[in-house]
């Protein structure tokens, strides 16, 4: 573990990014998409086809802001999980120092996402109260592999979307830049989370694995389903009921999610966290 942490620390020295100075926060915002249109929850549905291009663009900007807000929410949880986990570790260890580096990264990312969404859209988004309360509980009780694998799930789902958006010339340059910064630093975090998950699971009995697998799957479900809520559609002036209904049945979106989460599912499978109960949850969420 210390070897991995040492390498990651070295990598952070090689390239860490400071959104404060790297991004020109005063540059004018254009009228690009907020995300690749194909990633919109409505893309491919009859409702999407009825929208004008301007409406489609506006919708993606709101969806992207909402997703970023879910990112912030999760990064807060993550910071607390990591802090609690290293509380007893010796400060001189690479693992400890890497953990604090990660918290510092997350802290900068959250500020960056907050500022970017403020520039992109008018309303401010937040996960629903129930989701926030679940998060509050999770960050106080989760430990070991449940904590790290949940971090992994959240970041990986976000990561795959952002990799697409950052390369997409149709997407607003600010979003692309913000996403690349996140992707670079997150790839280190995911390496770490995988390593921690593997390590914590070594020697775990079947009962514990079963429980952890389920907890992680439920966390994944909560995160994915809170990314874009009905107020997003309402704010863009759509019929929220219809939008929610069509989005929920959008097979294109589900197949995009499934494809993007394939590596993640491979990993969970390889460490024995795809138990039948957990798989059922992932199938419902559309990740498997």
């Amino acid at each position: 573990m210390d070897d991995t942490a040492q390498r990651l620390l070295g990598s952070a020295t090689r390239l860490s990014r400071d959104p404060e100075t790297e991004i020109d926060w005063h540059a004018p915002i254009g009228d690009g998409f907020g995300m690749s249109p194909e990633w919109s929850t409505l893309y491919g549905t009859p409702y999407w086809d009825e929208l004008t291009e301007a409406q489609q663009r506006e919708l993606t900007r709101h969806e992207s802001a909402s997703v970023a807000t879910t990112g912030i929410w999760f990064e807060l949880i993550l910071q607390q999980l990591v802090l609690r986990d290293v509380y007893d570790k010796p400060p001189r260890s690479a693992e400890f120092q890497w953990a604090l580096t990660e918290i510092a990264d997350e802290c900068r990312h959250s500020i960056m996402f907050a500022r970017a969404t403020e520039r992109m859209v008018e309303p401010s988004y937040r996960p629903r109260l129930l989701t926030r309360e679940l998060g509050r509980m999770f960050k106080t009780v989760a430990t070991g592999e449940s904590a790290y694998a949940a971090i992994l799930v959240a970041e990986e789902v976000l990561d795959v979307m952002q990799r697409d958006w950052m390369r997409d010339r149709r997407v607003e340059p600010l979003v692309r830049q913000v996403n690349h910064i996140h992707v670079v630093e997150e790839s280190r975090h995911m390496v770490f989370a995988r390593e921690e998950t593997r390590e914590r699971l070594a020697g775990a009995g079947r009962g514990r694995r079963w429980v952890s697998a389920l907890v992680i799957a439920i966390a994944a479900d909560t995160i994915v389903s809170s990314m874009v809520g009905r107020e997003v559609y309402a704010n863009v002036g759509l019929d929220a009921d219809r939008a929610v209904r069509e989005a929920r049945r959008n097979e294109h979106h589900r197949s995009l999610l499934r494809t993007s989460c394939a590596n993640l599912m491979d990993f969970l499978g390889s460490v024995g966290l795809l138990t039948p109960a957990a798989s059922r949850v992932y199938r419902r969420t559309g990740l498997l």
Partner: protein
Amino acid sequence: MSYAISGECCSDASCVAVCPMNSIHPSPGEPGFGTGVSLFIDPRTCIDCGACADICPVDAAQPADQAATEDVERNAEYFAGQEPLEATDLDSWEPPSYQVWGGGPRRVLVVGAGPAGMYATRELLLRTTAEVTLVDRLDQVGGLVRYGVAPDHPSTKQIVQVFERILHHRRVRWMPGTDARELPGVAAGGSSGARRGPVDGFDAVIHAVGARRSRRLGIPGEDAACTAEDFVAWYNGRPGAVAPAELAGPRAVIVGNGNVALDVARILLSDERRLRGMDAPLDVKRRLAASGIKEVVLLGRRGPQDAAYTESALQELRSAVGDRVQLRHHARPTAWTSEGLTLDSGESIAAGNLFTAVGFEGRPIDGLPFDPDRGIVPNVRGAVVDRPGHYVAGWIKRGARGGIGVNKACAQETVLTLVSSSRVPASPGS
């Protein structure tokens, strides 16, 4: 420091998708992808995040300080003379491409559980909601990865574990030990060979049956030689494989200039230490150890610049067996007898065994058209010509070229063709 990719790489490009710095090339779509067997990391832009190593299914990506010096050099060399790509200039990246869900088929039959069939199955699970029936005449998944890839390359064989996990998916029905020709409905041809439309009970069939039959030299005495097909099946313990007649030292001749010829040479010359570490049947190891083969002559028809083997495979052979392997170029065999091999120059090379590794070819599939020159089923991006509902993937689609991972992009193309032939709205609306 940076990371580096070793010769064990099977170029499935998993690492390309996770590298945050666009440091790994050639990526799918770039010239050179799928022709060699390895990808490379640009040490000038790699930031050591380790994401590539984390995702690599065969442990080919490694930190440079743990990799072999030759590998580190090979990686750096690949980029010599090219400007480093500036990853923060996002326009230097390939734009994303999207596949739009197309309604898709409900039931698909995949024939062959080699890399192509397994990648196709995985892609179907991801892109569609179809139920996939997967058959293989063998009892195990993996195809040539299990029964072709040399047993002293255990990391390469690890990809089988990824394939095995696919079998556990709820929408997969796995039927091992089933020859597709015996399935009712698939035993299509036979009769008129003019079937139109897919097999009964399925919306589509993907034939991923590979191409493992050895090409022939066409010289007198060849029947007494051992083909690569038989030899690799034997040393990998394929059920039903026939052992070579007798391994007689001190010299063997191998005709062929690809990585398979190099595999055969390496295995024949394996010392005791190498044999011990091999995951091969006991009897195979015993016979190899007792063969008395001390020297191998590799014959190529053309010059070294035309050789089909990769640089890393040659390096590995050299470091494993030193000067006990001799490379001969511009040599054409004309006849094989128990005395040895006669060349077109009139010269004769005395040897106890002749091995032929001059490539592989597919066999015709009942009911489908076949191109005997290329040894493939003629197709357009995976769709078999004139046979709606029938698709091909892997070696039977492209010919016997390319490493394991290349079949991933190949199978993806086929599934895309299959799915986009049936496009409907992604949500039924309301």
